[in-house]
């Protein structure tokens, strides 16, 4: 079939087979989704069957992603069409790296779900359709630099998430959480789309590279200044919602507390990091468009803006986590704080003094990879405590070190890693962001370094509270019963955190490899931008 397609005129010049191959990890997930939909029709709703189909899909997708990673290592492909500038998707090192992380994480979440669901579970197909759907959306978010695709990807990631949060239909809290998430999400998505329509009008194109050029022009010349700023802010508000950055973070604790624990784990890592990488890509395009003389004037406020947003986000997350009694809600606020740390990495390469764009990007990627293991481990332990005691209140963690040492020890490791203490990987992630900030060697850099360090101290307190509850207090509750597989999962996460600290240098090299050559694909470089001059609004004849 693909041969036939390639012979047709409309597709002339496109190597269809290669493009399909490059995009195969996400296509495999879509096919898996269809297979899961077809399962209840053909073989029934058994959770085991569905789980097997999903796991096979994830493994197939992972193998393909590894092969694609080898293919694009020397430089990605932009557009997946003959005209990169008008193309909608791109495949490069960064997108593949994120997809690999996403697939590993999805495997973990699937396993967690599989252990947590009872034998009589009959909603397995629906859950996995939603999970796969949001995974595809997140995979698309990191592999595009086109406004339409950005909007579609964010919605594809969001819509299943709303439903997943309210998945248990008899749960009042879940219903309330999904309502709040839905309303915040729908509002910010609508505002983002309005911003996209204005950006399209200002630049006449949906390609982010061209849009950024026009935005910079109008910012430099003061022409259409207000409307450009408003449009950019609308776009950013949609992305900031997904990151749960400061003014758009209200949904996060409620949605995370009301959702089932596997869903909370999934959202806390996957949706946030996808949005962060998307924001990083946009920032990269924007910075590249600014030529040197104007750079200081324009990038400095932007860097300060993102920096202050990051500082407020992580301070707020940490202070709100301070007085929480629900472990899920505490981890939700901690995930807001971590989003703040990761935003700091983006502030690094927006900064005009910085020519270490790649340094910020690789620090961000490493942090995401480490954060995935920390959260999977921590949520895994919380999940097993909830399954046994039925409550995620901190009181049910009392004496866990005696009741279930094989859960308490990995939990302590994950929590210390979340704080960022050596010898755990969380330290590495935080350290590289701090190093990148320090190298800026100006007021913003040091301001963010101080904020991050102070925040780490604050966070030490509330993470330690759980540790103290688990180790020093004991009210004689009976030993915890937990599935062996779950114990293995959290211990693997804990060991991974050790290992990543031990192999810090290879980790750094790998993440640098995966952030190489991403610039050209993001900028849709191979095409001459001036070939089809876009008409800005001013020249419109009525």
């Amino acid at each position: 079939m693909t041969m036939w397609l390639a012979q047709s005129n409309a597709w002339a010049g496109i190597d269809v087979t290669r493009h399909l191959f490059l995009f195969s990890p996400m296509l495999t997930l879509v096919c898996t989704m269809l297979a899961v939909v077809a399962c209840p029709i053909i073989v029934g709703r058994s959770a085991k069957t569905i789980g097997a189909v999903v796991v096979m899909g994830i493994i197939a997708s992972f193998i393909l992603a590894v092969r694609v990673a080898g293919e694009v290592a020397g430089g990605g492909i932009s557009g997946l069409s003959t005209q990169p500038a008008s193309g909608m998707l791109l495949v490069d090192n960064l997108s593949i790296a994120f997809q690999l992380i996403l697939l590993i994480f999805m495997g973990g979440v699937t396993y967690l779900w599989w252990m947590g669901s009872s034998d009589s579970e009959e909603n397995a197909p629906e859950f996995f359709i939603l999970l796969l759907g949001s995974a595809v959306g997140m995979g698309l978010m990191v592999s595009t630099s086109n406004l339409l695709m950005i909007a579609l990807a964010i919605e594809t990631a969001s819509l299943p998430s709303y439903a997943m949060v309210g998945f248990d239909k008899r749960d009042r809290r879940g219903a309330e959480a999904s309502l709040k998430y839905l309303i915040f999400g729908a509002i910010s998505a609508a505002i983002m789309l309005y911003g996209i329509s204005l950006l399209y009008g200002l630049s006449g194109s949906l390609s982010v590279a061209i849009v950024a050029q026009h935005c910079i022009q109008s910012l430099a010349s003061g022409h259409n200044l207000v409307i450009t700023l408003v449009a950019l802010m609308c776009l950013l508000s949609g992305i900031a919602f997904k990151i749960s950055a400061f003014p758009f973070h209200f949904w996060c604790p409620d949605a995370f507390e009301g959702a089932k624990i596997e869903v909370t784990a999934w959202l806390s890592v996957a949706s946030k990091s996808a949005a962060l990488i998307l924001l990083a890509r946009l920032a990269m395009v924007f910075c590249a468009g600014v030529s040197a003389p104007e750079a200081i004037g324009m990038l400095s406020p932007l860097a300060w803006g993102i920096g202050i947003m990051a500082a407020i986000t992580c301070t707020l997350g940490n202070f709100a986590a301070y007085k929480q009694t629900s472990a899920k809600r505490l981890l939700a606020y901690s995930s807001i704080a971590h989003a703040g740390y990761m935003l700091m990495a983006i502030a690094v390469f927006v900064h005009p003094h910085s020519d270490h764009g790649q340094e910020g990007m690789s620090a961000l990627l490493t942090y995401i990879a480490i954060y995935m293991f920390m959260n999977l481990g921590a949520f895994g332990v919380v999940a097993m405590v909830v399954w046994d005691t039925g409550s995620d209140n901190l009181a049910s963690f009392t004496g866990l070190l005696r009741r279930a040492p094989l859960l308490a020890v990995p939990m302590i490791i994950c929590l210390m890693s979340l704080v960022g203490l050596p010898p755990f990987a969380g330290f590495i992630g935080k350290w590289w962001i701090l190093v990148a900030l320090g190298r800026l060697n100006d007021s913003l850099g040091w301001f963010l370094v101080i904020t991050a360090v102070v925040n780490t101290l604050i966070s030490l307190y509330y993470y330690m509270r759980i540790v103290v509850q688990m180790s020093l207090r004991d009210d004689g509750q009976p030993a915890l019963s937990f599935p062996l597989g779950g114990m293995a999962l959290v211990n693997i996460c804990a060991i991974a955190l050790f290992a990543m600290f031990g192999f810090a240098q290879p980790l750094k090299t790998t993440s640098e490899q995966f952030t190489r050559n991403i610039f050209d694909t993001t900028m849709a470089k191979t095409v001459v931008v001036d070939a089809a001059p876009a008409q800005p609004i001013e020249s419109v004849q009525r």
Partner: protein
Amino acid sequence: MMIYQMTALATTILASAETTNVALHTNSNLELVLGIIMFTAAGFGIVFGGLTVGSVVRPKLFHPEKGTAYECGEPAIGDSWVQFDLRFYTVALVFIVFDVEIALLWPWAVVFKEMGAPAFWAFIVFFLLIAIPFAYEWKSGYLTWVRASSGQRHKPLLKDKVEMAAGSTPA
């Protein structure tokens, strides 16, 4: 707080849309803005003016009959805020989802002749993406009005059957 932010945002957008216009076509635009203002003022004037004059002039004789809804001269029975059967919503949802897909077929139909075979295969993929979920809906019993058939997920309990017979929502 969110509310203030949004209102401020909205105001800025409206203002910026108008400043752009002013910069472009000063005369026509002032005319337009003036027109909008006059139109809005007239609209508000007629509504509130009428109500104000009415409230001053009319005799104030209250009667409970006057407070009821006018139903063609018949006395109203019950409240108008009755709850519809939830099945209507379910059917509407299914309808919306499949109905809107037609919008995506429209541009496809425009270029179908020029593109030929690839367009056909693209359609087949699209059709599969719709057909399989449709089969799923059918099989899961979301399309049956009275959910008592054998292909259904939950075998109805006796209680549900009684409720269904009484015309209320099945649990």
